[in-house]
């Protein structure tokens, strides 16, 4: 009886130790990889440079089986950003499309794919993606409207470009870029009546 009690206690202690170890892995490994990939993408965006190490980090993040579709989509968006910075637009578009497939409600994936499409002079598709990002209430809607304004301008649709620069200025009043672009436009209005 005493021996059985000792064995049971040891078994319980072992299970507890195993549980603690597994829990530790969950909280340390997962978020760190996605955060590293995300930080690499943010830094690449700031510096205009994305190295092979950054791609490897985000490649590992993309390959991991995440708990939520949002996490999977974010990994693809971050790696897509790295490809975009490197000028590898086909790969960027592919990753942003994978992100949209994983999480069709992720507004930033549409915006970012729009940027990559625009770099390939596919302005009609880019405009459709920017519009979808705005419809999904993208976080920085002013930036998305600005991107769409540029795409419209590149198609020669100056009226819609002007209106989108104006929208960008309204949505992000502290940002001077929309006002600078609006200053380039010469607008006339229809006479009243």
């Amino acid at each position, binding site marked *: 009886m005493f021996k059985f009690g000792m064995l049971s206690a040891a078994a319980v202690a072992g299970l507890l130790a*195993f549980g603690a170890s597994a829990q530790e892995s*969950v909280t340390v490994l997962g978020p760190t990889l996605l955060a590293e990939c995300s930080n690499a993408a943010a830094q690449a965006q700031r510096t205009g440079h994305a190295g092979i190490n950054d791609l490897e980090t985000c490649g590992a993040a993309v390959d991991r089986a995440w708990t939520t579709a949002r*996490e999977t989509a974010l990994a693809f968006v971050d790696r897509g950003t790295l490809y975009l910075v490197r000028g590898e637009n086909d790969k960027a578009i592919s990753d942003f499309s994978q992100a949209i497939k994983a999480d069709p409600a992720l507004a930033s994936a549409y915006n970012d794919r729009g940027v990559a499409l625009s770099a390939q002079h596919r302005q009609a598709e880019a405009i459709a993606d920017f519009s979808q990002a705005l419809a999904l209430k993208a976080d920085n809607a002013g930036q998305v409207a600005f991107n769409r304004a540029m795409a419209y301008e590149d198609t020669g649709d100056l*009226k819609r470009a002007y209106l989108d620069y104006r929208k960008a200025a309204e949505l992000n009043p502290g940002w001077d870029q929309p006002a600078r672009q609006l200053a380039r436009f010469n607008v006339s209005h229809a006479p009243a009546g």
Partner: protein
Amino acid sequence: MRLVLSAVLAVSLVSGSALAGQDDEILGDLVVVTATPRPADVKMAVQTAKPPPEKQPVKTASK
């Protein structure tokens, strides 16, 4: 034949008017817009990547 062509033309004009009306609604009373070329250093931007919240569990880490 002439009647058919007239009918097609009338439908086209009506469609064109409807589209123009739609544009007017969107564009307000803007009728002429010109713009000087955009400076080359004005770039589009991706949405800034956001690190995920800490301590989210993942499937593959379980033993």
